[in-house]
């Protein structure tokens, strides 16, 4: 963590709960109490029905691999080897961008629809990033 030199997110008042969650080892989503829709990215109203009656909840952390690339362009801050940039579908429905970790960064190892689970990478005192790894068992 001491030498973490990648771009970091700067939370806003509307996203603070998400980043507080990842810091505490929780993936937090929001859901509308009127229409029950889960959504991402964070905002204090439901993008489906417009209601402001929304709640934050802890997501399961389970996901499947929706699509990805393996970046071969130079990104010294991500090391010297090619790395995945992926979009995953959470069990609760929303999708998010992430990296697939604890897994070879190859087409053979990264299979679409494979089950994944969230893990958190501490980047600074304030920020932990949600990453995903192959689900165990």
């Amino acid at each position: 963590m001491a030498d973490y030199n990648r771009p970091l997110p700067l939370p806003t008042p509307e996203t603070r709960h998400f980043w507080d969650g990842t810091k505490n080892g929780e993936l937090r989503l929001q859901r509308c109490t009127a229409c029950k829709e889960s959504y991402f990215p964070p905002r204090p109203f439901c993008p489906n029905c417009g209601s402001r009656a929304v709640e934050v909840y802890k997501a399961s952390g389970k996901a499947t691999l929706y699509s990805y690339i393996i970046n071969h362009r130079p990104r010294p801050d991500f090391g010297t080897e090619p790395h995945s940039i992926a979009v995953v579908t959470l069990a609760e429905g929303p999708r998010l961008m992430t990296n697939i970790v604890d897994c070879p960064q190859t087409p053979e190892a990264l299979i679409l629809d494979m089950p994944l689970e969230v893990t958190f990478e501490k980047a600074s005192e304030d920020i932990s990033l949600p990453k995903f790894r192959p689900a165990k068992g």
Partner: protein
Amino acid sequence: MKRKSIAVVGAAETTELGKIPDTSQLMLHADAALNAMKDAGLTARDIDGIATAGDSPVEVAHYLGITPTWVDGTSVGGCSFMLHVRHAAAAINEGLCNTVLITHAESGRSRVGARRFSRDPASQAGQFEVPFGISGPPTIFTIPALRYMKQYGVTEEDLAHVAVVQREWAAQNPRATFRDPITVDDVLNSKMIAWPFRLLMCCLVTDGGGALILTSAERAKDFPQKPVYILGTGESCETPMLSQMEDFTSSKAFRVSGKKAFDEAGIKHGDVDHLMIYDAFAHLPVYGLEDLGFCDKGEGAAFIREGNTRPGGKLPLNTNGGGLSYMHSGMYGMYALQESIRQMRGIAPAQVPNAKISIAHGVGGMFAASGTIVFSNEAP
């Protein structure tokens, strides 16, 4: 808009395209604008509407000595110029202005007087995409393709065919950056950029610009060039973050914009003689063919592989060579429009014989926005 109520009466690209290290981005705007004004037989004093994207229309207007009564700075990426055409048509019909200049310029390669591209870490993408290592279009725009390939059984060879066919068109175009023929093997052996995308599946990075001048169809008859009429227009947008696209196998913005343009134009797909689909990467023409309704879902890649879009094919596509072979300075939509205009005037280097209807379809950002313009060269 009312069909054929507006016409393009001036169109030109910058004098040079490619590598232009001795000219600033602002001067590229002016170079394209001066060429377009000359094409139309006008001077800056005749222009009363201005639109550009990326840079400020205020800067372009002042630099050229234009005092507009209508200003449009819509900036939603590379299709912004399609949106400008649409907005300008509405503005002219509403009487807000008479003669509109739309410019694009980017010192994309040489970066002379070019804006720095950065994302605020507090923006949505800055928080939820940038931290995972995206660094520009090659590592963002490419992400949906693998899902598409799995869903429809499309291969890397299929994507390579897109680049091969467009090079066939570029070979006929003296202004194209890359003109030497390539094979599927050449594409598949080119440098890996972001698996499954290789270098020759990615657009160029060049310097250049283009400009258009629009006025009412009524006035258009008095201009030196053959008028090109606007038959239909569409625009839409979906998401500032690629990860939040509804469906990675189809662009909602493409579908909405395309349908609107077809409906306005009152045409069927079989009426279209010539098509431009903004090809930042090799999968874009495939998505475009399907989302515009030229092919069923999953059939766009085979349509290209089987030769339908190549020289002599039934639907000539990206006849300037496209962003993959012609040029791509950053916001390519302007060059797609320019090629449609050339085809409608009958002066394109790879002219489609007797083409009467042309469509230019653009993407903005990474599947973020879209604009579609249907042109006709037949007088109302």
